[in-house]
């Protein structure tokens, strides 16, 4: 049998088994779930072995004599001391190194992306220099750089930032500012929600396109047969669970 046809049957079966979760938790879903987790773990182990142990450790050290790589290898091996209770404390050095390096890398990146970039994009002149017209106040909402949009962005950034003040009580005028901030947040969330839902719909369309393609006789109609098998199994399981006596506790 052609490998493409086997692939079509496996893909269709697993897709339908996962979709069966929409009805309720059932053995078919458990089968697909365990298979999925098992395959992904197996794949990760093989990939990690090849990428890290072979290409990042073994080959550079043995073939290229890059002995300095023994330092990260030693730090990494300290992790394994967790399995020896008496030496488990050594693993804390490895964790301290990882958390320290992580924080060290994250701080400048955070200052750059979440502080400087935001300040840079918020600071815009309230007046525009238009060739032929001179310095003007632009009311054009369609132009992101217009004066009125600069004011909207300024109000949004200031109010949202104020909402995230934790040592100041949100009462009186502060409450109004914080509520304005929440309003801006919700508008942003709404836009993001709609955008992401559309992206998810495209994923669903991708799966459905595959299922339609695999209903073709050239593949042996796996979509048709496996849909019948899935529905049949769910009906049988449902009837069996009804006939079983209720749980004692």
């Amino acid at each position, binding site marked *: 049998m052609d490998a493409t046809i086997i692939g079509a049957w496996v893909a269709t079966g697993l897709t339908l088994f996962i979709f069966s979760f929409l009805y309720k938790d059932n053995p078919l879903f458990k089968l697909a779930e365990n298979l999925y*987790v098992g395959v992904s773990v197996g794949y990760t182990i093989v990939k990690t072995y090849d990428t890290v142990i072979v290409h990042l450790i073994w080959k550079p050290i043995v073939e290229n004599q890059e002995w300095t790589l023994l330092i990260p290898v030693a730090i990494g091996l300290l992790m394994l001391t967790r399995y020896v209770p008496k030496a488990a404390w050594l693993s804390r050095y490895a964790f301290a190194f990882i958390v320290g390096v992580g924080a060290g890398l994250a701080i400048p990146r955070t200052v750059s992306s979440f502080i400087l970039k935001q300040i840079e994009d918020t600071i*815009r002149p309230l007046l525009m220099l238009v060739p032929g017209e001179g310095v003007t106040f632009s009311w054009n909402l369609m132009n992101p750089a217009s004066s009125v949009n600069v004011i909207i962005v300024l109000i949004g950034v200031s109010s949202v930032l104020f909402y995230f003040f934790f040592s100041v009580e949100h009462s009186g005028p502060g409450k109004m500012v914080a509520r304005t901030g929440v309003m801006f947040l919700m508008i942003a969330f709404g836009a993001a929600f709609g955008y992401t839902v559309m992206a998810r719909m495209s994923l669903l369309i991708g799966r459905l396109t595959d299922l339609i393609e695999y209903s073709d006789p050239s593949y042996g109609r796996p979509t048709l047969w496996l849909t019948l098998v899935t529905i049949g199994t769910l009906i049988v399981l449902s009837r069996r669970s009804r006939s079983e006596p209720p749980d004692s506790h």
Partner: protein
Amino acid sequence: MLKKPPSVVLASFRPSTYPRGYASALHSLRPCWMVFLNILILIVVCGVSSAVVLAEDHLAVPANLQVFDTPNDGGQSLTVNWAPGALDSPDVRYQVLVGDAGATDVAALKVVAEFPAHTRLVKDAKGAWWTRTAERNWHQFTIRSGKAVELKDGTVYTVTVAMLKGEERIVGPLLQAAPTPNWFNWNLVNNLVLTLIFGGVVFFSIAHARRRDIFLRRIPGLDAVDEAIGRATELGKPILYLTGAHDMSDPSTIAAAVILGRVAKKTAAYETELLVPHRDPITMAVCQEITKQAYLEAGKPDLFKEDSNFFITSDQFSYTAAVDGIMLRKQPAANFFMGSYFAEALLLTETGASTGAIQIAGTDSDHQLPFFVTTCDYTLIGEELYAASAYLSREPVQLGTLRGQDIGKAMILSVIAIGILLATLGVATQAAWPQYFLDFFKDVK
């Protein structure tokens, strides 16, 4: 001088003021030779003028050409600067040529870039005034190692710039430079200064918090943490706690791990089962330590289970499928989603909502926040996640850090207000000096 000659020449046709009485016999001849002389001068001047006009149309060698190692970078890059030319316009183009150190002939050089002569100016490049290598109106091009040319650190290369117009091309002097990596990126000096300022403010606030109590406003999502743990205890069901998709280098994972410590302490005190499935083995190991410590602090070390933190897989959707299965089979009474999340967020929270569990989420993944807001009972938005551990523990260090962050945010608001004022002033007065302040708050990498 070239604008004046015609008027000078024509001025000589004016009547002479020389007294006739002193005139020689040759005087009668004056008009003839004067006319001849003026015509001769006119021809010469017109010839010179037209020659100059032709010269202005001709291309000129790029002036003040400089080639040097690109400063503040990781190497494998050279920068070329040259002064603006009189003919710089969209019709005229510049070429940047690179070759080996020994190249003495332009033919041996390779063209790595060609662009209109009015583009690639210093002012267009992303940079700050303290690292600028030329005037704002000068041309600048950075040659980076890539498909067009491979630059090796420490190797000398010959570089030049040519000016083109139609078929005509004039090449500048051949200059040499070698790329080298730099220890410091001075573009990031503003980043360092801000980090030091914010760090100083945080340290000051921590010292202040040790001496005095600091007010923290109530965060509804955080109040719900105790409520959720209490509910799980009453129902005799476990608590499911997720630490997100990232590893320990991500601040949100660190925050999630800190909150886990607090939650674990409560579950230990109430003797409630805690389930923490992981995607990252290192995060799992760190969380195991945190959970163990929490059980010790709660005085219940015997209740600590090594496998309360367990690894599933690092694959996104197989992990999601497994956690969904846990939610349906173990029926936890409370689900915590802390840390960073991606497309799995809605799949997890929808399943959790279908089991009737109380759900509390906390993430700085802004693209997933809408899903948490719609499917969870309480959501810690962005920085509230970081505030959570301080709010729950009331420890001076964490309270002081939070207070320091608030002061930092107030400083940012002030900078934005002053910056907008200066930027507006800069546009209104056409002054360049506000840019010196604004550059300091630019993200220049």
